[in-house]
């Protein structure tokens, strides 16, 4: 964070003590977040070449997933009841969710252990804003939005291949469920990141979460038994992208998975917040 944003944060912090709460408070958080955005944009423009290269990397890996689906469907008609273009839609939707999540949260979650190791968290704790807010949203990864767009393009193409025209309501429901999915990923990964309050080398664990994204883009019917139970009820990876896609193309057979996704989204957020509070309570500064 540079001095500019720091003073902006302090400015808006001061203004809170002047103006009361409610709407003004929300407005103030928006102002702070706008400052953080400005910062991130400045940072990205400093390394333009690198910015483009990272987008190419993400595109390649996305293409690779699609190629895998393509190869599999050379040899089969369906996976469970999922047809080829339905799975492409699923892979696209998971990529969309993952990239939006990445744009807002990933770097910040990964950096938490660094903040703790270097003692920089002290400074953030002292700011008169919600600490979790600053820690979670400090940096925006703009490339994530570009990659989310390419995921959307693939989804539109898949819908066209399926010759399915979703209604406005279905698209709206899909997008809202995507938000729930993003929040689940965020809650879980943030919880993992708070492990760094106990052991400093938690960055590896945070990146280990990446493997869960790979499960999220698999069709739910490919799993059964204990594995399915764990990744439905404990770490709801098999719900986060499967349910939105099923809602979008009307293949949701009954409401239970939908309810489960919403309930687990709520539960993950609560547990994650509780763990965070417990962890901060434990925090003793590293540097001083």
């Amino acid at each position: 964070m540079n001095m500019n944003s720091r003073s902006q944060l302090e400015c808006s912090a001061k203004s809170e003590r002047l103006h009361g709460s409610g709407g003004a408070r929300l407005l103030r958080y928006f102002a702070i977040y706008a400052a953080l955005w400005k910062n991130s944009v400045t940072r990205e423009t400093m390394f333009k070449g690198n910015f483009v290269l990272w987008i190419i990397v993400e595109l390649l890996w996305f293409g690779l997933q699609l190629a895998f689906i393509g190869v599999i469907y050379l040899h089969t008609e369906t996976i469970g009841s999922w047809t080829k273009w339905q799975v492409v839609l699923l892979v696209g939707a998971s990529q969309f969710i993952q990239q939006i999540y990445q744009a807002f949260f990933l770097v910040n979650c990964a950096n938490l252990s660094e903040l703790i190791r270097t003692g920089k968290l002290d400074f953030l704790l002292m700011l008169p804003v919600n600490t979790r807010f600053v820690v979670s949203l400090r940096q925006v990864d703009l490339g994530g939005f570009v990659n989310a767009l390419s995921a959307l393009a693939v989804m539109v193409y898949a819908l066209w291949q399926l010759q399915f025209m979703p209604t406005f309501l279905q698209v709206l429901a899909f997008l809202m469920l995507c938000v729930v999915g993003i929040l689940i990923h965020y809650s879980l990964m943030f919880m993992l990141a708070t492990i760094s309050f106990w052991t400093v080398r938690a960055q590896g664990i945070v990146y280990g979460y990446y493997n869960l994204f790979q499960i999220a883009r698999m069709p739910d019917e490919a799993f059964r038994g204990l594995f399915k139970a764990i990744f439905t009820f404990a770490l709801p990876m098999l719900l986060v992208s499967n349910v939105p896609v099923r809602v979008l193309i009307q293949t949701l057979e009954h409401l239970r998975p939908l309810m489960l996704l919403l309930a687990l989204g709520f539960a993950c957020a609560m547990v994650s917040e509780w763990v965070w509070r417990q962890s901060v309570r434990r925090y003793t500064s590293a540097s001083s």
Partner: protein
Amino acid sequence: MAALRKYWHVLNVGLQNHLTYRFNFLARALFGLLPLMAILSLWRTIYEGKGDEATVATYTLAQMISYYLLVTVVDALTAVNEDDWQIAADIKDGNISQFLLKPVDYLWFRFTLFLSGRLTYLAVACVPITLFILYWRQYFVFPPDWGTFGWFVISLAMTALLQFFLSYMMAMLAFWVLEVSTFIFILYAFEYIASGHLFPLDILPPALEQALYLTPFPYQLYVPVGIYMGKVTGSELVRSLIMQAAWVALAYLLARLAWHRGIKKYSAVGG
């Protein structure tokens, strides 16, 4: 003899360094089993949808699962893990200056560290991987005979060399560009799909499969697994091993060349 003793010492130091990160290694091994489990379940569902005795290309379900289990084993034995980042960091931070003075060859120094990394990873990961294979044991095949196994071991050793030399070569980019990670990730992407990590290469359309054999990627993973499973035999076996050896030699030469070119441009920062 004295030279070997020197690198023996490096190996020891490397082992101790790597052991500090044993927890990281374990986490990596455990987390890595999740997507593997997912892919295996996916294939099982596909085979069930096709009915009993179904095959995909030439693979039965058991062979398909064996394939992925073997990929996991070969990967644990030969994959480069952070060596490329470390080499790039050494160049960027000026740590390589000392090797220009010491009677230690940087390439073999790094190779020894790579070996020690693999040994540590094996020591830590062998328990979860063995348990995982035991869980799928009804699908795990053994090589048809000891001869095949011998060729597999030779191919495996060449795979490790090829993996290392290619990574070393990529890391040499650090002499020219500030940020090598994007380039390394781009190479990883190609390796991931074209070396047979995601699926066996012989389920591809034949023309595509043949085209892949013009690249070094199949020799980084698919070839030793194919040999083990008895899919590569006779004159094809001989040709594969010769090609693999050629790629190893070429990668070695390119790695050396990149280093010499880089050193000429290199000016130590800090030091």
